[in-house]
């Protein structure tokens, strides 16, 4: 009888380690699996039984003696009993490709990965030439999952077509958007899938060196990736003469140092080169002059992970998921003030309302939902009138919003949207790389102007000024940091204008006086 308790960040943050220690003290050595991404049930304890793999959750160390007793008699009698984990509606209704293996076993166990179709995609790729692999990626319709949604196959073709002795594969694992954890879940629950995808990318474009640029805020992923890479090298899935093919691919994890902007690909490349993470002007495209000036594929974790699926199951199988020009599956991350937060992998096209109401079951606080921010700190705040928009790149672009990396942050009716708009500017002040003026200075002025609007100082004039400032940032910034910070600001102003007008003109800003947001919770 195997018992599983995850070693994932969220499970650990909710006490999984203490649970594991109690199990060990009771003579049970648990398998430390990854999470299935059902974070509202973490720590989720699973047990292999005659009735399949059953779950209990969320558990604490104090529940363990009772669960062990119940397993001896009648497991279903325990109040945390969930039945078969794979029949939990939240999970059963998903279309899991990238996360098919997540949570099933020890994430760094190579045998486990191979038993679950791991490295099938790589062995298929080893039978193809570079162009054939790139064609598979093109045919799959895969678009970059980091946020920009650029067709992956076209980027790869550009790098393949460059005549250069040295090329690089860079994985953008600087998942800085609030409300996102999809990359982290891949790296912590199924790291070999990323390693496999990057190796295939190397074979496709003729690159022999890869880097995973990982944010320093992910210590668990850092540890697991390093173990996985070491074991993959030992088993010759990485390194020289991979599986006797004569092909070479080396992979290394590089740690960021706490800079949101390094999630922008050119800033990331500068950081990898050991410099300040300053955004580069494009052209030249990184595909032509990227890392150390060489042709470079820069893809997000999810994009590279999807490569394993595409090479394993074929381009057509992947292409059959989705709608319009958004093919495959989307990793939706449901977060913030939500009752049942977690990772939801579905084909493109599900509506926002279905996600937050059916999967999420409303807010954690039990109060009505007021606003939903999709796509991280640069994404718009959506009012209820927009929640029926299908999750598809084009449909979201049509309402001046973006899917981005797929993060959804829910706010209840106690949220102060003027404070959130101010925060969007404040975040840009802290995280701007400083290269271009609209972003560096505009964000500072943005905070000030919002404060004046809220304080009712020349409100009408300042509202005009804020819109003009947003125009300048949108049109004049070098990258999305300055260019999209106006999205949350403007959407808050458009849909939640009343929050900007609550402050009495004579009174000081509550936030300045106390550090507590006005409008309070």
């Amino acid at each position, binding site marked *: 009888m195997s018992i599983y308790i995850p070693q994932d960040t969220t499970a*650990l943050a909710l006490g999984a380690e203490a649970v594991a220690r109690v199990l060990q003290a009771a003579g049970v050595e648990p398998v430390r699996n990854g999470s299935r991404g059902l974070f509202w049930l973490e720590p989720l304890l699973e047990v292999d039984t005659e009735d399949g793999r059953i779950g209990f959750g969320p558990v604490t160390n104090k529940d363990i003696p009772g669960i062990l007793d119940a397993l001896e008699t009648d497991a279903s009698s325990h109040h945390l009993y969930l039945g078969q984990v794979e029949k939990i509606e939240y999970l059963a209704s998903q279309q899991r490709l990238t996360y098919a293996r997540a949570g099933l076993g020890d994430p760094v166990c190579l045998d486990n990965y191979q038993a679950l179709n791991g490295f099938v995609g790589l062995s298929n790729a080893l039978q193809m030439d570079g162009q054939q692999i790139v064609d598979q990626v093109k045919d799959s319709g895969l678009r970059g999952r980091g946020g920009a949604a650029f067709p992956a196959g076209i980027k790869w073709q550009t790098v393949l077509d460059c005549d250069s002795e040295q090329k690089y594969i860079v994985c953008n694992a600087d998942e800085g958007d609030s409300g996102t954890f999809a990359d982290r879940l891949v790296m912590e629950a199924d790291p070999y899938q990323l390693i496999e995808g990057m190796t295939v990318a190397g074979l496709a474009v003729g690159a022999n060196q890869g880097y995973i640029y990982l944010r320093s805020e*992910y210590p668990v992923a850092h540890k697991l990736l390093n173990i996985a890479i070491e074991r993959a090298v030992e088993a010759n899935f990485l390194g020289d003469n991979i599986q006797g093919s004569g092909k070479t691919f080396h992979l290394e994890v590089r740690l960021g*140092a706490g800079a949101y902007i390094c999630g922008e690909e050119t800033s990331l490349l500068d950081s990898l080169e050991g410099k300040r993470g300053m955004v580069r002007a494009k052209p030249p495209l990184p595909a032509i002059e990227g890392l150390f000036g060489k042709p470079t594929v820069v893809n997000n974790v999810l994009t590279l992970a999807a490569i394993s699926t595409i090479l394993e199951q074929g381009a057509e199988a992947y292409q059959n998921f989705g709608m319009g020009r958004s093919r495959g599956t989307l990793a939706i991350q449901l977060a913030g003030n939500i009752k049942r937060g977690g990772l939801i992998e579905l084909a493109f096209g599900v509506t926002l309302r279905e996600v937050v109401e059916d999967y999420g079951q409303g807010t954690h606080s039990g109060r009505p939902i007021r606003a939903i921010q999709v796509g991280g700190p640069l994404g718009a705040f959506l009012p209820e009138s927009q929640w029926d928009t299908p999750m598809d790149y084009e449909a979201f672009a049509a309402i001046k919003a973006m899917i981005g990396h797929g993060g959804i942050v829910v706010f209840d009716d106690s949220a102060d949207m003027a404070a959130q708009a101010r925060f969007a500017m404040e975040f840009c002040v802290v995280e701007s790389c400083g290269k271009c003026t609209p972003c560096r200075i505009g964000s500072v002025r943005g905070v000030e102007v919002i404060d004046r609007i809220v304080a009712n100082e020349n409100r009408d004039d300042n509202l005009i000024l804020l819109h003009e400032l947003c125009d300048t940032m949108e049109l004049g910034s070098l990258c999305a940091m300055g260019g999209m910070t106006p999205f949350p600001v403007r959407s808050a102003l458009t849909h939640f204008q009343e929050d900007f007008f609550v402050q009495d003109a004579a009174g000081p800003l509550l936030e300045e006086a106390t550090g507590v947001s006005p409008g309070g919770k």
Partner: protein
Amino acid sequence: METSAQNTADISHLVTQYKAVPGGLLPLLHAIQAELGYVPDTTVPAIATGLNLSRAEVHGVISFYHDFKTHPVGQHTVQICRSEACQSMGSRQLEAHAKALLGIDYHETTEDGAITLEPVYCLGNCACSPSVRINNDIYARVDAERFDDLMADIKAPVGEPK
């Protein structure tokens, strides 16, 4: 905390280890900080010489990234997530509580040298907010009461279970 040993810290073994690594400055700075707790100004000339950079370039990199500290920090670094998901679950109240409890603002260290308080923008734990990181451990659903417990655990004598 600052000792003369750190003022004249010998980092030559680390410089040797990283000087031939492509883009080796960030890994080197991480290694120095892991060993000394921060990157003392006194180490900048040796880094610059070893990596064939100007001192200005090295300083520019150190000052760009939030992670690199140029002064000693507390024994424990406590980071409170300020991002939107955590705000939606009350992290603004949590940060106000933490500052009041510890008697310090962000980027400051308690008088006893035990705790440095820092903001952080997302720990990737957004389905179970608010999140706090203490050294390399992350904690979920941290309200004021749980924060008090975590701080009490930090101050517990060595050997006490956390």
